[in-house]
Every structure is written in structure tokens, then in C-alpha cells.
């Protein structure tokens, strides 16, 4: 049995693979963000007020990456479906 390279896949399957990849990346970033939020809260409750700023900056960067990935997924979705309709 040989594995199909992504180039040989039909565009619709390829699109799904790309979207699944982007979604897994978003899920990983989300887990890091949840951890960051709980660590920042824990540190705040312990009376340490210096961790809030770096935690917010990192969380913001991760949100922007997630947003970028969503826009990418949105574009792939619209292009693949449009190409399917044109054919």
C-alpha cells in the first residue's frame, strides 16, 4: 500500500486536510492560552502583580494567530467550494 502525497489528492480532500491542520494548531494555542490564564490568575491571587502584563501580551499574540488561522480556514473553505461549483 502506498501513501497518497497531498499533491495527488483531489482539491476537496486537500482542503479538508489543510483545515484539519489549522484547527489542530488553534486547539494547541487554545490549551496554552487556558494554561496562561489560570497561571496569571493563580499568580494574581498570590499577590504577585508583575505576571499579568506578559501573560496578557502572550495571550493577545496567540489570539491574533488564531484569528489569522481562522481567516485562512475561511479562505480555503470558500475557494475549494467555489472551485467545486465552477467545475
Amino acid at each position, binding site marked *: 500500500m502506498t501513501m497518497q502525497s497531498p499533491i495527488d489528492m483531489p482539491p*476537496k480532500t486537500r*482542503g*479538508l486536510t489543510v*483545515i*484539519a491542520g*489549522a*484547527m489542530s494548531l*488553534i*486547539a494547541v*494555542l*487554545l490549551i496554552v*492560552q*487556558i494554561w*496562561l*490564564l489560570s497561571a*496569571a*490568575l*493563580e499568580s*494574581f*491571587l*498570590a*499577590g504577585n*502583580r508583575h505576571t*499579568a*502584563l506578559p*501573560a*496578557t501580551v502572550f*495571550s*493577545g499574540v*496567540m*489570539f491574533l494567530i*488564531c*484569528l*489569522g*488561522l*481562522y*481567516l*485562512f*480556514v*475561511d*479562505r480555503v*473553505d*470558500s*475557494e*475549494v*467550494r*467555489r472551485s*467545486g461549483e465552477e467545475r
Partner: protein
Amino acid sequence: MNWLRRASSGPLWKEEFSVHAADERYVTRRQLTKFLVLTSFGMFVGNIWILVRSLFYKAPSYPQQPVARLGEIPVGGVKLFTYPTKEDQCIMVRTGENEYVSYSQKCTHLSCAVYYSEASNRLECPCHQGFFSIKDGAVLQGPPSRPLPRILLETRGEQVVAVDVKAG
């Protein structure tokens, strides 16, 4: 590289409800991605909230309150009192002839009441076996991740007076 989708010429419903069964997988994945990104935004907002609270934090001032008479409890003995408000249960332990220590009685894990174990000379939480040092309230074992808040005591004449709370 253009990350944005091209403006669609079709109606919005066509984007959200595909008439082709195969396209349904795209729609559901895109919607799940949107939900994940909104969750990510929620996490970001949570961090901003913590940041705002940190920036506008004002250290509270605590009252001075007599909590015991000198010699009222024996060495190794315990007295419970409330400080700084009636809702904040605290525990005071006489650890030596002239040594008193006091902590908030609320476990920093899930708020069960800690008690003093004279046999092992530490504060113990019965809920999940969280143990705290009697010297400084540091976590010795168990799920709590923060030390117990310490009540600062002073001896004035014949009185032991609570003067401040030091967060864990």
C-alpha cells in the same frame, strides 16, 4: 499571500448551508474553528481583566485587633478567631513560650478549614490532604499551590494583637 476570502457574489445562506452534502464537512469545520477563535478571544479578555485588576490594585489597610491574652492558650494550643472581617476565620497556634503564629484557616486549594496537627507540627487540610508548614504557611504537600495567608501578630502588653495580613 492573501489571507482573506474573496468577496462572495452569492447570498450568505449559500455560504452557511451548503446544498452539496460533501460541502457540509467544510461548513461544520469552519463553524467549529470560529467557535474556537471566540474561545481564544474569551481567554484574552480574561487576561486583560486580570491586568486591569493588577494595575488598579490598592493594598488594603487592616485594622489592629486584639485576638488573645498572653498565656491564654498553652504551648501547642490553638485559638480560632476572625480577622480582618467576621467572615475570615483564622487559626492561631502557640508554638513556643513566647511564640505565636497565625494564618487564615481557609485552605488555598478549595477553601476547606485547615487544623493544627500537634503530632506532625503542621497545618493540615482534611479535604485533599494538603499540608502547610507552621513556620511560614508554605505548602508541604498536596494540591494547594499557594501558601496560607499569614496574619501578622504583635505582642502589646498582655495582649496578642493582629495587625496585618500577608498574602500567601
